[in-house]
C-alpha cells in the first residue's frame, strides 16, 4: 500500500493537479467577479492615473516619502489604459487572471508527481486560499491587489529556483526581483525566497545569480534611502492593533513616540504568531480577549484550532528532521518546510510598522506549501511521519479535524467574497458621505467625474444582483471579519 501511494502518477493523471488548481481558481473567480471595483483605496487610484502618462505616473512614485511603490501605480495605469472605459471587467478580470496564475504556479512549485501528492493537494489548496492571510489578497481590489501580485512573484521565484540552471533563469530572476521590489516594499521578500531556495538545495538560480540579486537589493536601499531620500513609515501613518484594541496614530505617538522599538518588536512577534496560530489578527488578540470574556465565536475557534494543529504538525515534522538537516540531507518535503521557516521571520519584519494579516500573505503561501508537503508524507505512509523516529504517528481524528477545519475556512472565503460584493455596492451608494469624510479634497474634473459615474453605475445599478447567502447557524463558523 505504501508503494502504491508513492507510485508516480500515470500519464493521464499528470495534468490533474493543474486541473484542480484551475477548478479551484475558476470557482473562486465566479465569486470574485461579482464584486464591483471598490470605492475605498481603489477609486482614487483610477482618478490619479486618468490624465497622466505612464512615465509621469511611475516617476512621481519614486518620490513618495515613506512609500516606494512606483510599479504598483504603473500597473494600475496600464490596466486602466487597456480597459477602454470598462473598468470593472478589466480590473476584476485582471484579479481573476492573477488568481489562476498564482494557483497554477503554486501547483507547479509543489511538484505533485505521486498519488500521495494528489491526495494532499486539495487540502493544500484549501489551506492556501482559506488562510486568513490570503483573504486580503483576494477580497481587496485596490484596484490591482499588489499583495496578490507579490504572491505570484513568490511562487514564480521558487519555480525559477527549481528550474534547470541556465543564464536565462538568472536574468529572469533578476527581472522578477526588480519588478517585485518596485511594486511594493514586501517585494524584497523575493530575494529572501531565492536565498532560502538556494540554501535548501535548489540550484536553478546560480551562485552568481544570487550575488547579482543581493547587489540589486543593496542598490534598492541605497537608491531609496540615500539617493531619493525616502523614509520608513512613521507611527503617525495609520491606526494599528496593540493588545486587545486598535490604537489611533495620536495614541501610538503618545505611547511609543519616544521609543518605538517595543512596538515594532510587538508587531514582528504578532505577525509570526498570526501565521502560526491565527492569533492575533491585525495585532489585536481577539480570540484571547474573547476567551477572557467567556466563550469565543465559533469561527475564532475553527481558525485558531486548525492553524495551531497544522503548525504543530509542521513543527513536529521539522523537529524530527532536524538531525538530517544538519547532515545536509533534505527531502522535497524538508525543502518546503525549511523555506517556510526562513520566510516567516523575514516576512514579519515587513509588518514591524503595523501588523496587518495580508502583509503576511507570502509567509501564508509557504505555510500552505509546508503543510502540503507534510500531508503528502502522511498520505504516503498511512498516517506515520515516515522519516521520523518511531512514535511519530498522527491520530486519525486529528487529521480529520484538520481537514474539516480547513474546508470550513475554504468555504468561508467564498462566503466572504459574496459578502464583500454586497458591502462594496453599498459603499458606492454612500459616495457623497465617503467624499465628505476624506482628509483631502476629492473634487473631480470631467474625466474623473465620468470614471466615478461609470463605477457607481456598475456597482449600484448593474443587474443581476446576487444575494448574500445564509446557512443559518452554520454562518457562525465563517470568519466574518476578513
Amino acid at each position, binding site marked *: *500500500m*505504501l508503494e*502504491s*501511494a508513492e507510485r508516480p502518477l500515470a500519464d493521464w493523471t499528470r495534468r490533474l493537479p493543474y486541473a484542480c488548481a484551475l*477548478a*479551484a481558481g475558476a*470557482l473562486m473567480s*465566479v465569486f470574485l467577479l461579482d464584486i464591483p471595483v471598490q470605492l475605498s483605496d481603489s477609486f482614487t487610484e483610477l482618478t490619479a492615473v486618468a490624465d497622466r502618462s505612464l512615465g509621469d505616473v511611475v516617476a512621481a512614485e519614486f518620490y513618495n516619502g515613506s512609500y516606494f511603490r512606483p510599479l504598483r501605480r504603473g500597473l494600475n495605469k496600464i490596466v486602466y489604459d487597456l480597459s477602454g472605459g470598462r473598468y470593472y471587467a478589466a480590473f476584476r478580470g485582471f484579479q481573476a487572471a492573477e488568481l489562476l496564475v498564482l494557483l497554477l504556479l503554486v501547483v507547479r512549485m509543489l511538484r505533485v508527481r505521486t498519488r*500521495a501528492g494528489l*491526495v*494532499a493537494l*486539495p*487540502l493544500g*489548496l*484549501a489551506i492556501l486560499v482559506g488562510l486568513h492571510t490570503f483573504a486580503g489578497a483576494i477580497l481587496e481590489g485596490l484596484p490591482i491587489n499588489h499583495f496578490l501580485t507579490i504572491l505570484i512573484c513568490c511562487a514564480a521565484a521558487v519555480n525559477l529556483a527549481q528550474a534547470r540552471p541556465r543564464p536565462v533563469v538568472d536574468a529572469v530572476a533578476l527581472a522578477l526581483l526588480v519588478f517585485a521590489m518596485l511594486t511594493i516594499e514586501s517585494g524584497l521578500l523575493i530575494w529572501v525566497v531565492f536565498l532560502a531556495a538556494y540554501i535548501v538545495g535548489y540550484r536553478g538560480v546560480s551562485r552568481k545569480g544570487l550575488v547579482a540579486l543581493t547587489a540589486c537589493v543593496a542598490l534598492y536601499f541605497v537608491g531609496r534611502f540615500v539617493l531619493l531620500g525616502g523614509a520608513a513609515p512613521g507611527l503617525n501613518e495609520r491606526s494599528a492593533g496593540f493588545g486587545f484594541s486598535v490604537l489611533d496614530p495620536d495614541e501610538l505617538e503618545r505611547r511609543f513616540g519616544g521609543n518605538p522599538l517595543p512596538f515594532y518588536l510587538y508587531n514582528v512577534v504578532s505577525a509570526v504568531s498570526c501565521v502560526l496560530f491565527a492569533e492575533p489578527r491585525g495585532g489585536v488578540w481577539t480570540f484571547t480577549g474573547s476567551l477572557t470574556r467567556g466563550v469565543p465565536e465559533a469561527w475564532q475557534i475553527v481558525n485558531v484550532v486548525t492553524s495551531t494543529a497544522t503548525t504543530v504538525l509542521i513543527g513536529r515534522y521539522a523537529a524530527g528532521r532536524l538531525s538530517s538537516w544538519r547532515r545536509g540531507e533534505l527531502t522535497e518535503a524538508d525543502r518546503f518546510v525549511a523555506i517556510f521557516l526562513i520566510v516567516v521571520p523575514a516576512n514579519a519584519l515587513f509588518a514591524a510598522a503595523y501588523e496587518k494579516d495580508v502583509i503576511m500573505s507570502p509567509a501564508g503561501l509557504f505555510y500552505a506549501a509546508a503543510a502540503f508537503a507534510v*500531508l503528502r508524507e*502522511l*498520505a*504516503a*505512509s*498511512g*498516517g506515520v511521519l515516515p522519516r521520523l523516529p518511531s512514535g511519530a*504517528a498522527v491520530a*486519525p481524528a486529528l*487529521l*480529520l479535524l484538520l*481537514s*474539516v477545519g*480547513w*474546508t*470550513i475556512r*475554504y*468555504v468561508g472565503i*467564498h462566503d466572504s467574497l459574496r459578502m464583500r460584493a*454586497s458591502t462594496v*455596492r*453599498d459603499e*458606492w*451608494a*454612500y459616495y*457623497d*458621505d465617503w467624499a465628505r469624510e476624506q482628509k483631502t479634497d476629492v473634487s473631480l474634473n470631467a474625466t474623473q467625474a465620468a470614471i466615478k459615474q461609470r463605477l457607481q453605475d456598475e*456597482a*449600484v*445599478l448593474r*443587474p443581476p*444582483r*446576487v*444575494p*448574500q*447567502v*445564509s*446557512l443559518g447557524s452554520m454562518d457562525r463558523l465563517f470568519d466574518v471579519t476578513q
Partner: protein
Amino acid sequence: MTPAGVATRIAVPPVAGFVLVAAYVFVEALGFQPFARPDGDTVSEAAALGHAARALQLIAAGEDASARHQVRAGVVDREQHELTAIEAAILGRHAELVRLLQRSGARHPDSARTVCYARMRLPEVLGDLGATGADAPHQESGVETTISTCSAGGGAR
C-alpha cells in the same frame, strides 16, 4: 491506519467543500437561490434591511421612494407592514440610509408618524426630518412597540 484511510481523511473534506460550493453556483445559475438572504423586493424592504445600493437600484428603476410599499413579515418584525422607505430605514435603525434616501428624493408624507418612529427608534435623525429632540437621551424601543405606539396616535404627540 491504512493509506486509504489517511487519504480519505485528508482529501474527502476539501473535495466535498469544493463540490458543495460549485453545486451552489450551478443551482444559482439556473435561477434558484437557496439560502439567499432577503434582499429587498421593494425600496422599503431594502431600506429596512439597510441595503443602500439595492434601495437606489429600485429607485432608479422607477419605484416611488416616497410611497408606502409592502415590507414582508420577518423583515422588520413578525408582521407585514406598509411603510415608506424612510420609515423602514428608521425602524431598521439605519441613520445614514435615512439621509441618503432624502438626498435621493424620498419624502415622508405622514410626517407625524415618521417623526414618532424616529423619536422611539432613531432620535439622531430627528434633525434631518425637521423635528426637534435629536439631542434627547438615546432610546431604542422595539419595532413592535414603536409601530403600535405610533399607529395608535402616538405620532400626533
